[in-house]
């Protein structure tokens, strides 16, 4: 019965099958094989990534819950905890953008309320192919509508995020969704099953045949046949989840539960196994008792279904009626499908007959762990060289001229950068998301990190998700460090002290040594940066096999950082507040063009080495930002990232009442050709830089604080007028009306959809 074809369909290797037979002491039946296949899939077992993930820092006095549970948790004072995690839904979103993205949102929300926390904010980090490429708009529209459809309905605001367009994601978009909730620290509930004889309840949507083998699908590459996998994508029902959310939080208030877990990837299989395993117990269920949406479902199908909006919970003895009553109130039916045992086995019955019996240990602890071979990819030698002189060569200038790009015209260059969908305003996207429901959002999307106040306290939480696949493609270790630094810096710009991080690691096929090398290097970089900036990783997710037809995405670790703002009313945003304010640059530009958006937009190049990062300087900068915000010395703060200083200053002018700015930047001698030199000063993406504005009277104090913190700081100009003027090396090189610049920026994405909206 179990031949090589069956194994292949289950994504199991022959040696893995041998291992299964050894553990079982016999051949598994098909149901058991299915259970092994999902639990040992890359998605559930982390078999390729585990050895590397173990090196990440996960501890600190602020950490209440590290990796291993449904989500991480940190102490935010007043007896409260912030519970948060990021997760990917890349593969389903490519196959069916709306439902793939929607169920990604649903899944991460369940992870948060499963911990006993009320979800209060969502973020997302998205990657698509070039916006003018065929298919991208359809995927973008579907993904955005899916996120909106689910998040808006359930009533959790999407308060921020990031979107990058890059050809490497054309056949494999990334949809990473972050959710944060608040719980009383003492009320955090875990996904454990314990207490022999305790009832195991199933609650939520009925089980159908949707999503069977979703976890296995997420552990394989794409090819032209992938569209046929559509039945493996689940369909979301945000209303059902809203009921589950309210009912579960109500049940948790009663202290009647031993543990609870959502059914996400690998559905009933994963939840029964993991709950039993964590509790050092076994779980026995009868699949005939599982509420079913379709007739004639086999135990195999029921165990592997990934139907959405389902929870598994274990009630304390004698409290069953109470639990059932609360679910009844919400028109949900908690069904007892089994009980906790002492034998450490996952036992599945069908009308009393045992159809599968596997030690939990075999499915979890004993899952294969691979130390896969790694080699530095060959492409790196080629792409890391960046000859700045070559950028100004007559041949290249002719090439650019043919595309209508004048590298000596910095007005033009800035407008082109602002109109790049990666830099341009994401308003078209975020206005489809309800970002204000729950009336906590005090920094709206597009204005910097997402910030939500915590009702009943003076505090607020800031959060940001960041990643730069281009940097990581050029240097995965440094690129990952830069991602951590940027996420933490964005949080610090709002005035919040970064507390902890969550990561979503999106990579190609780990069985290829070059990809595995990228992965290992990125994890190394994350670890180093998280240690230096004191933001331990409290959980996250790994998404491998992001390849289509053998082409891997840029390695893309996405980092979510959460920070605490002691006084919500001292939150700082990106926008200039008033004319006549001083503009100060914290940090130093080094004219680094490697991997920059400028190189890509102007020269169509992805080359060079990403900007250097001094972690100690970064830490000092972030501490300074938090201190300045705490003393109300900054009126605005905006990180310099894509597009460098010029784009950052421009963005500070946007969404104001048209406040202009005049700044001058030192043009460092980075190239012999002055045209490249100026571009490097304006658009280079040197790290650890922030543009702040302040009332003139506060400038001295700010510079003193910066000097004491050993953060380079310099007044570079002032706000005012209705033009954006930038001088470099004493020469006025950018002079644009704010209106014109803002038009280019605000329509960067919208203009691709105009025809269809009319």
């Amino acid at each position, binding site marked *: 019965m179990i031949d090589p074809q069956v194994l292949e369909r289950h994504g199991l290797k022959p040696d893995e099958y041998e291992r299964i037979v050894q553990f079982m002491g016999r051949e598994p039946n098909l149901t058991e094989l299915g259970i092994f296949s999902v639990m040992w899939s890359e998605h559930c077992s982390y078999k390729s990534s585990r050895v590397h993930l173990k090196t990440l820092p996960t501890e600190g006095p602020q950490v209440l819950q590290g990796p291993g549970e449904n989500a991480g948790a940190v102490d935010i004072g007043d007896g409260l905890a912030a519970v948060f995690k990021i997760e990917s839904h890349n593969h389903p979103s490519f196959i069916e953008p709306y439902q793939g993205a929607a169920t990604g949102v649903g899944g991460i929300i369940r992870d948060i309320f499963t911990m006993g926390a009320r979800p209060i904010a969502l973020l997302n980090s998205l990657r698509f192919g070039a916006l003018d490429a065929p298919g991208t708009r359809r995927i973008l529209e579907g993904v955005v509508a899916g996120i909106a459809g689910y998040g*808006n309905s*359930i009533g959790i605001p999407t308060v921020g995020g990031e979107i990058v367009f890059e050809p490497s994601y054309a056949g494999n978009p990334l949809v990473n969704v972050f959710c944060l909730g608040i719980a009383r620290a003492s009320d955090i509930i875990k996904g454990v099953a314990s207490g022999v004889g305790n009832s195991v309840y199933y609650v939520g949507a009925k089980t159908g045949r949707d999503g069977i083998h979703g976890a296995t699908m997420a552990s394989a590459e794409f090819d032209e046949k992938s569209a046929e996998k559509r039945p493996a994508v689940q369909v979301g029902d945000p209303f059902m989840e*809203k009921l589950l959310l309210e009912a579960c939080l109500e049940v948790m208030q009663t202290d009647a539960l031993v543990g609870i877990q959502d059914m996400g990837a690998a559905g009933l299989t994963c939840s029964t196994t993991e709950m039993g395993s964590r509790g050092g117990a076994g779980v026995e269920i009868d699949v005939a008792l599982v509420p079913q949406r379709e007739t004639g479902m086999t135990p195999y199908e029921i165990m592997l279904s990934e139907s959405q909006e389902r929870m598994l919970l274990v009630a304390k003895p004698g409290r069953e009626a109470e639990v059932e009553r609360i679910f009844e109130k919400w028109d949900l039916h908690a069904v007892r499908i089994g009980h906790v045992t002492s034998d450490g086995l996952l036992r599945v019955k069908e009308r009393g007959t045992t159809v599968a019996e596997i030690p939990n240990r075999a499915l979890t602890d004993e899952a294969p762990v691979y130390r896969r071979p790694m080699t530095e990819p060959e492409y790196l030698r080629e792409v890391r060289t960046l000859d700045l002189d070559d950028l100004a060569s007559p041949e290249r200038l002719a090439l650019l001229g043919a595309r209508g790009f004048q590298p000596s015209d910095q007005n033009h260059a800035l407008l082109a950068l602002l109109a790049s969908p990666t830099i341009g305003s994401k308003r078209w996207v975020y206005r*489809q998301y309800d970002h204000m429901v729950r009336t906590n959002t005090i920094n709206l999307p597009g204005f910097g990190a997402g910030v939500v106040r915590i009702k009943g306290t003076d505090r607020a939480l800031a959060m940001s998700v960041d990643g730069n696949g281009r940097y990581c493609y050029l240097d995965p270790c440094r690129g990952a460090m830069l991602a951590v630094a940027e996420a933490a810096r964005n949080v610090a710009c709002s005035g919040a002290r970064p507390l902890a991080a969550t990561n979503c690691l999106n990579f190609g096929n780990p069985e290829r040594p070059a990809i595995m090398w990228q992965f290992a290097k990125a994890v190394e970089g994350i670890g180093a940066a998280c240690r230096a900036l004191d933001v331990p990783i409290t959980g996250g997710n790994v998404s491998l096999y992001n390849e289509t037809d053998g082409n891997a995405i840029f390695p893309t670790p996405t980092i979510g950082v959460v920070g605490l703002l002691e006084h919500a009313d001292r939150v700082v945003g990106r926008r200039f507040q008033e004319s006549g304010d001083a503009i100060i640059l914290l940090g130093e530009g080094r004219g680094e063009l490697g991997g920059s958006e400028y190189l890509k937009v102007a020269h169509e190049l992805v080359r060079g080495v990403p900007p250097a990062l001094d972690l100690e300087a970064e830490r000092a900068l972030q501490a300074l930002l938090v201190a300045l915000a705490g003393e109300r010395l900054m009126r605005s703060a905006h990180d310099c990232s894509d597009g460098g200083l010029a784009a950052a200053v421009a963005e500070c002018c946007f969404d104001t009442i048209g406040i202009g700015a005049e700044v001058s930047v030192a043009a460092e001698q980075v190239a012999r050709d002055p045209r490249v030199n100026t571009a490097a000063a304006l658009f280079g993406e040197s790290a650890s830089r922030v543009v702040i504005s302040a009332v003139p009277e506060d400038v001295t104090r700010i510079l003193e604080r910066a000097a004491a913190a050993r953060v380079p700081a310099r007044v570079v100009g002032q706000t005012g007028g209705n033009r954006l003027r930038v001088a470099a090396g004493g020469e006025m090189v950018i002079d644009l009306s704010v209106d014109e610049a803002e038009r280019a920026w605000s329509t960067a994405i919208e203009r691709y959809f105009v025809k269809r909206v009319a």
Partner: protein
Amino acid sequence: MRFGIVVFPGSNCDEDAFHAAKTVFGQDAEYLWHKDADLKGADVLILPGGFAHGDYLRTGAMARFSPIMASVRAFAERGGPVLGICNGFQILLESGLLPGAMLRNKGLKYRCEHVHVRVEQTDTPFTSAASVGRVLRIPIGHGEGNYFAPPDMLQAIEANRQVVLRYTDAQGRIDEASNPNGSVNAIAGLCNAARNVVGMMPHPERACEPLLGGVDGCAIFESILRGAEIPALHAVGRSV
């Protein structure tokens, strides 16, 4: 003053309305579960925003069958002030407590952003503290806010001065660009003929604290509180 906030399964702005009434304005507030009939002595009812019953059919189409709606109707008929916000407005339309219907937004997409609305009428319990022509900056968040009424009905609504709020620009001028959803006559808020039942698409509860970036929504709540000091504006209501 006691606010009663109706909670349907799928309501998601119920806590926001509660917070505004209780914490921001310091009033009594009670949640009213949709399966109950008891209004718990509420002086004013709010049907909050959200996606009642998931809104998989037409928005508000299922909610009107909830047991509490009979009590809401009786309360309205006695002249009690009822405010429907967003999904609450849609439910009032489906229940026939307000005239007309909602269509999908003209751009077919959900829109969440600050908009400007001009106060058209001040003889309702929810706008009495504002002045005619005052422009309020209040957020919206909806996918089906494109108000529609057939010509005869629209004419009657206008003749009876039932349009309470209209979408305008910041200066109070009506133009297409300022109408976020394509509503006929730029209608953002509406009252019944008896003027005690008001529906509005913008969310005043999202604009009651400086921290949230605006306080123009306070005008709606202040009107309610002011109404409490004045004997019932209209003794007997009649359905539209």
